[in-house]
């Protein structure tokens, strides 16, 4: 068999599909076999993704990086579907595979036994995610969204239970509406442009007639609503914290990247379609992303403070992260985009780790104890007299110590404190906002930059308050009288691994940021991408027919 590296591009879609299909032939009782198959395929996925990432790398940082185009069915672009691998999609693939591997290992502790077909659903979710990151076709994107969503419906309901079913059905209802909007939007865009290929769309959009342009805008706007629902922009985001909190831990851990799919698509399409338009930063679309993103950070901040359980807290952290990214996209500046990409990776890793950690932490507690009620008593200050108690410290059991360390690391990441990557991410965004290159173009620092800075800091502060509140409650107050949670090594391992990844991200911040800057530059100058796709050669076409251009 001739297996050129070209075919590697489709491997992130096929590996999970084949593994997921094979799972269906294995008996549910043979869990070891199923688990091994899943792990094996996810490891392969990670390896392939890393290979692909290296494939996009060129020594010359200034150029847009290499683009690999895979023509499905060997049809010439733009008529059939193609997959496009560039820096951004390769980065997302690696991130997905990393989260997937850790969530999967975590699930082997107990969760994969909580219902049927967990492994298949999980693997097919990966297929959907990878497909969405790779595809270069708008309708095919819809298909992979559906794959991803359908699998996520199953994963959210995995393990059953009243709360989960309720939140899950809400999730399904909202996302079905979103899918409908997606379809309407795609239909409208196809109706006025006559094509579905993203690169071809980018070309045709600039040539469209005045009358059709309105229709195109309408379609793009409806499409964006669908993506914004997925990304969780306020006020389309109320389903998100409830769903993520109710989902079983490994599902929630991989869902951390699902909300980023919406972000990814917005970033890719907005810049591909309108990136060449000098008026785009002032267009209503960009403004909505900008102000909507700011509102989302605000709402996430409020929600983080008002959360009574850690699950909801983590859900609102997802909103803060989404809001930050949306605002960054709305600013349409290369430097900010680069910072946002770093932030995306860092916050996704942190949130994913947090979702898994929360389940471990709350395992030992009964529900009533873990619900935090912030009253005056909970905030202390009742002791006017000095406590003359015997002062000898309490040794912390090893499990709690490990969990506590991980919790602190998550908190540090989400608040944006040093030394982990959350700080670097926040710093690079702030630094880009106030970099002289940008402000010199505009003479003054725009008000939105100030708002963004204020909200970034306030959201960090709110997270600090909320995390210290529940961290103290969980690790300093409770352990005295609660049972120790039974935690397996394979459950703590993936959390630690994700947190270590953020540490690596911090130490290697220089090279990583160079990569992000290169990625952002190629996103903001989409011409090489468009040309790369449109001129992609077919593999030795049948001789009788000439390729029509």
């Amino acid at each position, binding site marked *: 068999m001739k297996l050129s590296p070209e075919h590697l591009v489709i491997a992130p879609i096929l590996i999970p599909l084949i593994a997921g299909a094979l799972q269906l*032939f294995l008996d549910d009782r043979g869990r070891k076999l199923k688990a091994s198959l899943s792990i094996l395929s996810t490891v392969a996925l990670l390896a392939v993704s890393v290979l692909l990432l290296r494939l996009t790398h060129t020594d010359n940082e200034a150029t847009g990086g290499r683009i690999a185009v895979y023509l499905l069915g060997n049809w010439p672009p733009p008529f059939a579907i193609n997959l496009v691998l560039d820096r951004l999609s390769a980065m997302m693939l690696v991130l997905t595979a990393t989260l997937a591997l850790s969530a999967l290992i975590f699930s082997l502790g107990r969760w994969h036994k909580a*219902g049927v077909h967990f492994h298949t659903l999980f693997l097919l979710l990966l297929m959907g995610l990878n497909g969405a990151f790779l595809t270069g076709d708008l309708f095919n994107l819809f298909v992979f969204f*559906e794959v991803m969503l359908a*699998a996520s419906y199953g994963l959210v309901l995995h393990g059953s239970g009243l709360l989960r079913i309720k939140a899950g059905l809400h999730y399904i209802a909202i996302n079905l509406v979103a899918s409908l909007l997606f379809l309407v939007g795609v239909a409208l865009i196809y109706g*006025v442009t006559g094509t579905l290929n993203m690169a071809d769309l980018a070309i045709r959009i600039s040539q469209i007639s005045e009358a059709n342009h309105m229709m195109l805008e309408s379609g793009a706007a409806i499409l964006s609503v669908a993506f914004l629902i997925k990304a969780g922009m306020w006020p389309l985001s109320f389903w998100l914290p409830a769903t993520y909190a109710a989902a079983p831990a490994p599902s929630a851990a991989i869902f951390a990247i699902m909300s980023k799919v919406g972000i990814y698509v917005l970033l890719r399409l907005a810049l591909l379609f309108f990136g060449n338009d000098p008026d785009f930063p002032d267009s209503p679309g960009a403004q909505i992303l900008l102000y909507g993103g700011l509102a989302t950070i605000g709402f996430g901040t409020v929600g983080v403070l008002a959360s009574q359980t850690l699950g909801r807290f983590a859900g609102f952290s997802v909103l803060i992260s989404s809001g930050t990214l949306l605002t960054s996209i709305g600013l349409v500046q290369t430097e900010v985009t680069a910072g946002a990409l770093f932030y995306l990776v860092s916050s996704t890793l942190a949130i994913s780790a947090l979702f898994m950690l929360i389940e471990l932490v709350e395992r030992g507690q009964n529900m009533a104890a873990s619900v935090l009620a*912030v009253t005056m008593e909970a905030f202390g200050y009742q002791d006017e007299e000095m406590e003359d108690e015997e002062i000898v410290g309490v040794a912390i059991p090893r499990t709690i110590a490990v969990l506590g360390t991980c919790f602190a690391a998550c908190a540090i990441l989400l608040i944006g404190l040093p030394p982990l990557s959350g700080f670097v991410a926040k*710093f690079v965004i702030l630094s880009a906002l106030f970099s*002289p290159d940008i402000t010199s173009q505009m003479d003054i620092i725009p008000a939105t930059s100030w708002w963004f800075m204020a909200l970034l800091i306030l959201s960090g502060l709110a997270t600090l308050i909320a995390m210290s509140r529940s961290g103290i409650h969980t690790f300093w107050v409770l352990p005295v009288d609660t049972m120790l949670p039974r935690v397996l090594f394979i459950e703590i391992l993936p959390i630690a691994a994700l947190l270590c990844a953020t540490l690596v991200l911090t130490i290697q911040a*220089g090279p990583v940021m160079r990569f992000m800057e290169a990625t952002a530059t190629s996103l903001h100058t989409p011409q090489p991408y468009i040309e790369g796709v449109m001129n992609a050669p077919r593999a030795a076409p049948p001789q009788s027919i000439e390729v029509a251009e």
Partner: protein
Amino acid sequence: MNSENLLLLLILLPFAGSALAALLPANARNTEAWLSGCITITAFAIVVYLYPSISAGEILRNEIEWLPGSDLNFTLRMDGFAWMFSILVTGIGFLVVLYARYYMSPEDPVPRFFSFLLAFAGAMQGIVISGNLILLAIFWELTSIFSFLLIGYWHHNTAARDGARMSLIVTGTGGLCLLAGLVLLGYITDSYDLDHVLAAGNTIREHELYVPVLVLILLGALTKSAQFPFHFWLPNAMAAPTPVSAYLHSATMVKAGVFLLTRLWPVLSGTDEWFLLLGLAGMSSLLLSAYFAIFQQDLKGLLAYSTISHLGLITTLLSFGSPLAAVAAIFHMLNHATFKASLFMAAGIIDHEAGTRDMRKLSGLFSFMPITATLAMVASAAMAGVPLLNGFLSKEMFFSETLGQHSGSVLDSVLPYAATLAGAFSVTYSIRFIHTVFFGPKPLGLPREPHEPPHWMRRPIEFLVLACLIIGIVPGITIGPYLHTAVTSVLREYTPLYSLAVWHGINTPLIMSMTALIGGALLYLMLQNYLAQSEDGPPGIRQLKGQRIFERSLVTLSWRWARWMEDTFGTQRLQPQLFLVIFIALIAGCWPFLGTDPAFNLESTTGMDPAFAVLWGIGIACALGAAYQAKYHRLAALILMGGAGLVTCITFVWFSAPDLAVTQLLVEIVTTVLILLGLRWLPKRMEQIDDATTLIARTRRLRDFVLAVSCGGGMTLIAYTIMTNAELPETIAGFFLERAYSEGGGSNVVNVILVDFRGFDTFGEITVLGIVALTVYALLRRFRPAPDSIEIPEQQRIQNDFDDRHPNRKVGETVHDYLMVPAVLMQWMFPFIILLAVYFFLRGHDLPGGGFAAGITLAIGLLLQYLASDTRWVEDRLRILPVRWIGLGLLLAALTGMGSWLFGFPFLTSHSTYLEIPLIGKIPVATALFFDLGVLLLVVGATALMLIAIAHQSIRSHRARAIESAKTQEDD
């Protein structure tokens, strides 16, 4: 080793030690102490070793590239000022470790303590020698985090937890502000490098962003140094173990704030804003905290307030902006560190040996611990500013500085008096500290019998007190050169002439000092009796506690308001969410058309066939009826939806799209039947809804109605416009029509699109179908019928009653028989349906049909079997394993696609030919056929799986009913 690497080592050593310390067993007190001691003394030695190059005016640098794109590098930089602070951090660090070895109880889990302490020392060292502003902010936040962990070390104690949290929130917030301020500072100067920033003083002071930058940086520095109005966290942090207080809250962490102010003094000071903001904060801290300190009953509380007050003195000095004042500030930082650390340690010894820190219980301890008492007395005297001790020198400098002109306002004339008053207060609390604890009658009712501490526990204090004395008596030859190195590195060419002599002759500052000494002593005499019994806190405003205000506003802001805002700006209910989504989509779809002239191309409606119009009229009526009936009459709504679906189907036929028509018809059948089967398990209709008739409910329904009509209308308009678009672009459809046969090998273009051109979409969609089926199965497997739906349906009850009334019939016979004729027909149809499916499948590539249609046809065959007889009957005879079918379908589709790799083509590249089969003849065979077979298998499997999942509910409900009746019998 060269000095660059030594700088790096200064940072790495403590952190490495911290990691090591954390791994030692819980009872390794001595090992921990040795480890920490070695590390701190090594660091101290390194700092000392570096002195020659520093004193030569050299600035040591070590730059490691980290994030050069954003100008954030790991730059370490040591000048004279940083060197002086490094001595404090490492030297006092070592003394504190020594002290802590004896202070901590053998039962305490000390690895955590020493680990955090070392990490803190590393972070503090980092602040001091950071050469990059952002790096400084990083270490800054690290000290906040480790100080939080250290204060909360005894976390079983409420006070420790509260104190830790408060300090974290206050200093953490300050740190975030500081980061913002430093980023802006970097923006102004175009660099975060300290040397670069220090050289840009005029640019900074003249920049329009100077005030925001100043405010943000001051927020950071003042919270860290516990300056008014952010001072309240420090007294609460006294719940920490005493070594922590001695290290963090006297010598290091709180000094970080004034360190930063001094560091940036050359570029930020000298403006009115600087003087006013900093001066006010400093003077208020100096005066108020000195006053509060007098009325503390807790020894450490007194020292905490005194620390705030002394830091206020330093802040005030820095605010003046004159070089001489800066010299005094730097000198006082040094002096305060020495006497305050020793006093904290003394307080710790008293607490340790007497068992309490409450000054109302302590008295007359001099006879029990004379050496400690003497040491404490000297240190207190230094704190009070008694001549011949180091505190006196810097305080004199302070007094003389207050006499100068600063802003030319009324503040100038008030300053000297306020300073003298604060001096008097500090004398009062110093005397109180000594007199109450060590003199007076023998103590009664102490928890322990007090005695001298172990010798080595006292050593650190002895050393520090000795330093106070030596510096106080011969400052010029002891501290002079080191101070000068520090001063020149900050002030550079502005370094003033100053003299460290003890005696400057009789001048105003000396008179102020004497006034303060005498006034303070008198004040103590007046208050002595009151203080012996009074409650904690200053009289009158005892209730006005910063801590309480902080907690209360925190609860209000971060809890009440947050929850209120979450409720106001969010919802957890589904209906409002859906309303919002659809409403926003409507707005999004409409905005591009706002303000434009709606011109619809209505010409194309003229040539409409009346029959088609009637057909569509029926379809529209069905759709409207379905929506109208959906809430209460699900069955009717379902049937009407079927009607609308049929009209769609006929429309496809009308426009010559038989493929779509066949598929649509089959899909309609399957979905309708599956929903029909599911209807049985839906909850019953609620006859009464409480607020159905209220005005609000009516308005809400009206609102929803309007939205629904607008959306529907909008969709109609958009669809119409698209379909009648005059400027239709050239679409990719042309390519498909052209190439379907020549390259796709099929004359049925729809099928070629489905399995070839866009086969990858089909590939994804069958996966979706498979996933949905698996999800339905997984969900329903655990599903138990709701109580209100397990009872036998009305129809069956009537039929059973009929059986009951007729003696020759058995109960259940009617139910079993009433579909007899259709059931037989359905069973007989089965082979024919299979044949039809095969037919659809084979002809698919050229004529209407294909894998999807065939699959659904086959599934309908199965469905009919389940309808005709009961579940058990079917499953006894027909064993299908739908999950395997799904798996097989997916694999087949994937493998077909991958087959093209063998020939070097991309995934799903097809190849077609004609195959001669005996009897049947020539049939087209494309590789797409195998792909289509995969589709077929999957569709059958998925439909069957859902069918079975629903069908099995009725078996469950039999069981549920049995259990229910058994229960009621028991109850009877």
